[in-house]
């Protein structure tokens, strides 16, 4: 059996969970077994996970799991994995999943590959999986030789497939011990897709000249339903909030479309974005290093190009 931990931050299943279950179902098919999804704490619509391929949905409806503690979460997931004889345990490669994956590997005496970006090859029951390494500059292939495998799945690595049937969630209990972490507050930007989950990201850098010029970037993001991001110098000068900073020291992202506006493309920035599927670079300097990593480039004044691009997208949306 393949066990997928479907995370539900603040009670809601999100894209990361749907991707993980879709992936888990495909791994289960490769192994000739079934996929079970597990949720912890209060969660709405756990039955939905059936549509993404879980043949069984388990929920530990214990409100103490509404506060994240990697120790208790790993204990509960490992407990369910053992009780159900899971051969593969899958979590999302998110702030939650990354905090749990290493713990699960220890608890289950399992080999771990974190941040996998594609489906495994299966041979003799063993999984061989790929992930990007060296901040996107290389790909590594690993074979897990232990009887149980733990994988964390990179965001945007698979398209959620909701073609199945919903399955009534079954309530179970686990013994996860008592927690030693007390969550005091969670502050999130509601109403916007968080950067790691965003399919389209519009990002801007020092070429914007002044924080008061960001309107054109926000307008473009609004048209595209995109999330806004920024380069390090912009975050460091407090032109934009810290959580928008993408790049090596900020957040690493892999959207389908990354539009970089007035960003020169220092290697530290590329390290956080070079796994984007398609990169568009808008810069007035034809020598900007970012053009070497781009799929499409526009050499021009961003203050003219960005509003023009926004109009073009609006026209496209109106006719499609």
């Amino acid at each position, binding site marked *: 059996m393949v066990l997928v931990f479907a995370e539900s931050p603040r009670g809601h299943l999100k894209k990361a969970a749907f991707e993980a279950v879709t992936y888990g179902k495909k791994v289960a098919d490769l192994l000739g077994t079934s996929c079970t999804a597990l949720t912890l704490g209060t969660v709405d619509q756990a039955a939905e996970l059936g549509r993404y391929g879980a043949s069984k949905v388990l929920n530990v409806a214990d409100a103490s799991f509404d506060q994240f503690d990697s120790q208790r979460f790993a204990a509960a997931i490992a407990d369910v994995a053992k009780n159900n004889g899971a051969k593969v345990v899958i979590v999302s490669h998110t702030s939650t999943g990354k905090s749990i*994956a290493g713990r699960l590997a220890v608890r289950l005496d399992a080999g771990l590959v974190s941040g996998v970006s594609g489906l495994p090859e299966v041979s003799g029951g063993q999984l061989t999986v790929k992930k990007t390494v060296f901040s996107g500059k290389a790909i590594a292939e690993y074979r897990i030789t232990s009887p149980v495998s733990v994988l964390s799945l990179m965001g945007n690595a698979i398209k959620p497939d909701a073609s199945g049937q919903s399955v009534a969630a079954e309530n179970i209990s686990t013994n996860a011990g008592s927690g*030693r972490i007390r969550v005091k507050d969670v502050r999130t930007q509601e109403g916007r897709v968080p950067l790691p989950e965003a399919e389209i990201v519009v990002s801007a850098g020092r070429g914007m000249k002044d924080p008061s010029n960001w309107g054109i970037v926000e307008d473009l993001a609004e048209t595209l339903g995109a999330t806004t991001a920024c380069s390090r110098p912009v975050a460091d000068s407090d032109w934009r909030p810290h959580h928008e900073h993408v790049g090596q020291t900020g957040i690493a992202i892999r959207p389908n479309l990354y539009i970089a506006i007035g960003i020169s493309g220092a*290697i530290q920035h590329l390290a956080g974005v070079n796994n984007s599927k398609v990169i568009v670079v808008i810069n007035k300097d034809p020598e900007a290093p970012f053009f070497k990593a781009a799929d499409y480039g526009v050499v021009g004044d961003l203050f003219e190009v960005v509003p023009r691009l926004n109009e073009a997208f609006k026209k496209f949306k109106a006719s499609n």
Partner: protein
Amino acid sequence: MKFLVCISQTPDTTAKISFSADGKEFNAAGVQFIMNPYDEWYALVRACELREALGGSVVALNVGPASNETTIRKALAIGADEAVRINAEPKSAAFVAKQIAEYARNEQFDAIFFGKETIDYNGSEVGAMVAEILDLPYISYASKLDLNGNAATFERDIEGGVEVLEADLPFVVSASKGMAEQRIPNMRGIMTARTKPLKVVEPVPFEEQVETVKFSLPPAKAGVKLVDPENMDELVRLLHEDAKVI
């Protein structure tokens, strides 16, 4: 307070990445190595700041061969009081975690620090593994850490926001941007680093559960297609019809 900071040595961000002909090994020839930035800028510096404020000691630990000692001395120059090198090639996250946990088990550390991930294998695995082996709380991606007596308060980066939390000592933490500001070692630090203790410990046995099949380089980009800045309809058409991302 007694703090352990686990430091890793990684290729410099700008290093050209290549592998042996069979794809089995990283090609280190001509590569400049550095201390993993998250370990250095955030984890090590914050541990040193807390030691300066509260007293105690900071131990820097690296799992690696003798050639890593330049990086270890840098940690001492930045402010660690002593260092430990576990004399082994850091073959995998699980191997490194085992070595660190076995060393730390009887040392009574109040906190164990990691960077949020290494810039080479990007796994973010070791901290969680050490926490589990030692049965300690683990706070990952912490952008803020303060100690108040026997409790610690943290801010932790989560998707689209921040989580504020509290834990009792001892704990394991992984540091992200914001926890501290990078420090450049000064001359006095560099001089005293030479004479600070650096203990070499032999590794404990470990059985690998993950094998590297091979490394490869991603397919080269086809090259940038330039679009006339006057004609953004064309860019939209390309993104829709060719790239199929909108």
